[in-house]
């Protein structure tokens, strides 16, 4: 019995100790406290990374068509948005990037050139890091798919898109459905999927007879699926490659998304320039004090 009590006492002491430590860490930090920058990036081939390195200029293009991804070899590679966020929340000195739609309170978004990655700024085109969302079809005579695409590009569909992204066509016409029946399959980018789910819900209110199945994978898988005919509409969070269009696909841009640069909530930094951001990801800017 004594042992049990002793154990409980020790356990509660440890617990209090942990909480105490957690409390101490809440004091404001300066850039000096943060020391070296821990760079967190996404994996090669990720749509977010592709858009990020292109938009920031981390990817250098030669005159002969050569493209070199200059992301520092020291960057931690996280293969999911959640893992990026987890890396940032767990490390005061870390910096990362995620889709602006996935931002939450556990991390802090940094302004780029003084512009916050809000949906207003992305729509206005003032925010530097924005990327296109594409859909692609192979069979342009598929009435059901065309009706849904018509909805996406209509005033109603673009209104749905503009809730969290930028609409590509702000003066689109109103939508009139041909009321097709049956089922279509939409597959591809996990970045586009949340938007597609919302579009699907809105479309179902107009025409509940068409079943839309959304399969979440990634941009390349979605484009491959549509070119092989295993789905009707492919989704990509990047522009289609020439080799993909050569397979007989018709791409259509449906919206734009912003990429938010995120740091730990204790990081005092509020803004940086796009060039500084590129230098951090190229490994040329190594400590937080360099950003002063």
């Amino acid at each position, binding site marked *: 019995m004594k042992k049990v009590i002793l154990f409980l006492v020790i356990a509660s002491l440890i617990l209090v100790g942990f909480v105490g430590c957690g409390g101490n860490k809440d004091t404001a930090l300066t850039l000096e406290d943060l020391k070296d920058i821990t760079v967190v990036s996404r*994996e090669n081939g990720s749509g977010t990374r*592709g858009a990020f390195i292109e938009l920031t200029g981390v990817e250098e293009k030669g005159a002969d068509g050569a493209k070199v991804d200059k992301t520092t070899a020291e960057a*931690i590679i996280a*293969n999911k948005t959640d*893992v990026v966020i987890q890396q940032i929340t767990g490390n005061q000195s870390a910096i990362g990037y995620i889709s602006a739609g996935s931002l939450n309170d556990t991390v802090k978004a940094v302004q780029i050139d003084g512009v916050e990655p809000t949906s207003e700024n992305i729509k206005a085109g003032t925010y530097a890091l924005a990327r296109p969302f594409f859909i692609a079809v192979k069979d342009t005579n598929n009435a059901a798919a065309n009706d849904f695409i018509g909805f996406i590009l209509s005033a109603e569909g673009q209104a749905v898109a503009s809730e969290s992204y930028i609409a590509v066509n702000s003066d689109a016409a109103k939508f009139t459905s041909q009321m097709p029946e049956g089922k279509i399959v939409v597959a591809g980018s996990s970045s586009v999927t949340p938007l597609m789910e919302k579009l699907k819900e809105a479309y179902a209110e107009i025409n509940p007879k068409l079943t839309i199945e959304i399969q979440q994978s*990634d*941009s*390349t898988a979605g484009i491959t699926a549509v070119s092989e005919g295993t789905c009707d509409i492919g989704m990509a969070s990047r522009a289609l490659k020439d080799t993909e269009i050569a397979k007989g696909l018709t791409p259509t841009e449906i919206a734009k998304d912003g990429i938010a640069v995120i740091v730990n909530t204790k990081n005092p930094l509020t803004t940086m320039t796009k060039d500084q951001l590129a230098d951090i990801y190229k490994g040329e800017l190594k400590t937080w004090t360099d950003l002063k």
Partner: protein
Amino acid sequence: MKKQKILDRLMGIVFRITATISIASVILILVFIVINSIPALREIGIFQFITGKTWAPTDTPASFGLLPMILGSIYVTAGAILIGVPLGLFTAIFMARFCPPKLYKFLKPLIDLLAGIPSIVYGFFGLVFIVPLVRTVLGGTGNSILTASILLGIMILPTIIGLSEAAIRAVPQSYYEGALSLGATHERAVFTLLLPAAKSGIFASVILGIGRAIGETMAVVMVAGNQARVPTGILNGVRTMTSSIVIEMGYAADLHRGALIASGLVLFVFILILNIAFSLLNTRKGA
């Protein structure tokens, strides 16, 4: 009597079929990997592929050098063995020969539970607990060879403990009693007699542990940092071959995809070498 014979014949066929299926799947996997990696290997060059230090699959022109990943897999596995084998072996000795039965009833299910935890949960634990721990205690980013080794060391414990304990228990009781009757203490009997007698079973557990460590993916991806470059220190991040495949396969097309499948082939060859070394070790001892 006749009925019995027919049944025997029938079951013989069933067993033959099941055996064929399992062997055929191994061969099919091998054939798939080889066929799919040959075009990529031919284009990149086997030597260039294995010794190249730059992995930049999305660059134009792309470069595919697997050396950082090969070294990554070796370092992380070696670290896991350094941490997991002593810990697991001593636990196994304790469980088999020193543990009071009351405590055993409690500990054994706990160790079994360790084996049942999904690797993604291990990974998450590593990410929120071991990574910050390594960062605060030793510096660096926390996503490192060391972190991955610690995590994998824990993950291979159930394999090592379970098999080693079984091997120690399989040593005939008469060996132990003989040692005691010659005046050896309990500890001496266990460490100088039972352990050597259980050697081959313990080796088997280590080999299986290596197999698990080198093949583990989801947990390692979350804690290792995954940098595709040759690491220079134990606190450097690292990418293993399996992580590389799982991270990039979803996006890979054309040559990139071939190169990833070829890394699978290299991994396959590694495990083959491991198994051959193990069986050589065993037959030599048997002879």
